[in-house]
C-alpha cells in the first residue's frame, strides 16, 4: 500500500469525525510518512510501520469515545432500510403514475361523452321551440301585410328562418359527431383501464400462486422431514431387532429405502420453492446459430 491509498482509506474510515479532526490526522500521518521516506525508508515500509489502517481508525475513534460496533451496525441497518423502502416507493410511484394517467383518460372520456350528451339532448327541443316562435313572428306580417314595410319584414323573416334552419341541421350534425367522439373516448378509456386492471390482477394472481406454491412446498417438506425421521427411527429399530435374531432384514431395507426417498423429497421440496417472478429472458443460443 502506498501513501495515497493509506491516507484515502484512513479518511474514509474516520469520515464520521469533523473535517478539522480528519484534517489533523491526514496532515500528521502524511508528514510522518514523508519524514520516514526522507530518512531513506521506502514508501511501502514507512506505511507499514504506521500499523494497519483498521487498527488505527479504531484507535482514533476510540479516543473520541465512539462506540465502534454500534456505528457499524447502524450503518448496515440504515442502508438496508433505505434500499427496501426505496424499492417500495419506486414501485408505488410507478403504479400511481400509471393509475393517475389512466384515471385522467377515463375521466376525460366520460366528460366528453357527457358534454356530447348534453349538447345532443335538450338543445333540439329548445331550437324547435325557437323555430316555432320565429315562424309565428314571420307569419304575422304575411297575414296582415300589403304594405311595403310588411313585405320587407316578411322577406327578412323567412331568410332568417332559413338561415336558422340550415344552422339547426349543421348544429345537429356537429352534436352527433361530438356524441360519437365522446363515446369513442369513453370506450377507449374503459379499455385502457380494463387492460391495466387486468395486468395488475394477473400480477397479483401470480404472486398469490407463488405464495401458495411455496406454502405447499414448505408444508410438504415439513411433513417429509417428519416421515424421514420416523423411517430413520424404524431403520434403527429393525437393525437392533436383526441383531437380536428377529427376521427383519427385509423391513430394514424397506425402511432404509423409504427414509432415503422421503429425504430426497424434502430436499426437492425446498429446491422447488420460488421467491421471485422473473420475466422470460431472450434465448441466447438462437442468436449464436444465426
Amino acid at each position, binding site marked *: 500500500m502506498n501513501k495515497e491509498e493509506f491516507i484515502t482509506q484512513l479518511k474514509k474510515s474516520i469520515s464520521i469525525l469533523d473535517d478539522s*479532526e480528519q484534517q*489533523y*490526522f491526514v*496532515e*500528521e*500521518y502524511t*508528514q*510522518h510518512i*514523508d*519524514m*520516514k521516506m*526522507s530518512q531513506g525508508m521506502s514508501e511501502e515500509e514507512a506505511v507499514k*510501520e*504506521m*500499523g*494497519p489502517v483498521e*487498527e*488505527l481508525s479504531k*484507535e*482514533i475513534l*476510540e*479516543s*473520541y469515545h465512539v462506540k465502534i460496533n454500534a456505528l457499524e451496525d447502524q450503518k448496515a441497518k440504515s442502508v438496508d432500510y433505505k434500499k427496501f423502502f426505496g424499492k417500495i416507493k419506486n414501485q408505488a410511484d410507478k403504479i400511481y403514475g400509471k393509475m393517475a394517467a389512466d384515471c385522467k383518460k377515463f375521466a376525460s372520456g366520460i366528460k366528453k361523452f357527457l358534454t356530447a350528451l348534453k349538447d345532443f339532448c335538450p338543445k333540439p327541443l329548445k331550437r324547435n321551440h325557437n323555430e316555432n316562435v320565429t315562424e309565428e313572428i314571420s307569419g304575422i306580417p304575411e297575414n296582415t301585410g300589403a304594405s311595403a314595410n310588411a313585405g320587407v319584414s316578411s322577406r327578412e323573416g323567412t331568410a332568417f328562418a332559413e338561415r336558422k334552419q340550415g344552422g339547426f341541421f349543421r348544429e345537429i350534425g356537429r352534436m352527433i359527431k361530438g356524441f360519437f367522439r365522446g363515446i369513442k373516448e369513453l370506450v377507449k378509456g374503459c379499455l385502457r383501464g380494463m387492460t391495466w386492471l387486468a395486468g395488475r390482477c394477473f400480477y397479483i394472481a401470480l404472486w398469490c400462486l407463488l405464495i401458495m406454491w411455496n406454502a405447499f412446498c414448505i408444508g410438504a417438506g415439513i411433513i417429509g422431514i417428519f416421515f424421514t425421521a420416523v423411517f430413520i427411527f424404524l431403520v434403527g429399530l429393525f437393525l437392533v431387532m436383526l441383531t437380536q435374531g428377529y427376521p427383519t432384514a427385509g423391513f430394514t431395507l424397506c425402511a432404509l429405502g423409504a427414509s432415503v426417498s422421503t429425504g430426497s423429497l424434502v430436499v426437492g421440496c425446498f429446491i422447488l420453492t420460488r421467491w421471485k417472478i422473473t420475466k422470460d429472458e431472450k434465448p441466447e443460443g438462437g442468436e449464436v446459430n444465426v
Partner: protein
Amino acid sequence: MNAQFKKGVLELIVLESVKNKDMYGYELVEEVSKVIDVNEGTIYPLLRRLTNEQYFETYLVESSEGPPRKYYHLTAKGVLYSNALFKEWDAFQAKVNEFFRGVEHE
C-alpha cells in the same frame, strides 16, 4: 511486550517526554520507540485526545525541509495531570513489585 501494558503506560511516557522538551510528532514517536515498541500511528490519536483535553497546546514552526512542524507543549493543566498520573504509576508499580518480591521469598 503485552499490548495491554503498553496501552496503559503509553500516555504517561508521552506526557513525561513532552514535559522535558517541546516536540513534534515524528520526534515524539522516535522518543517513545526507544522505550516501547508500538505501531507508530497509534501515538497520534493519543496526542489529539490530550490536546482536545487541553493537556497539550500546539504551535507551528517552519522547517527547512518540508511543511511546518506542529510542536506539542505541555500546559499547566497538563503538568498537573502528568504529575498525578506519574504518582499513581509509581505507587502502583511499587506495590506490584513489592508483591512479587514477597511471592519470591516465600
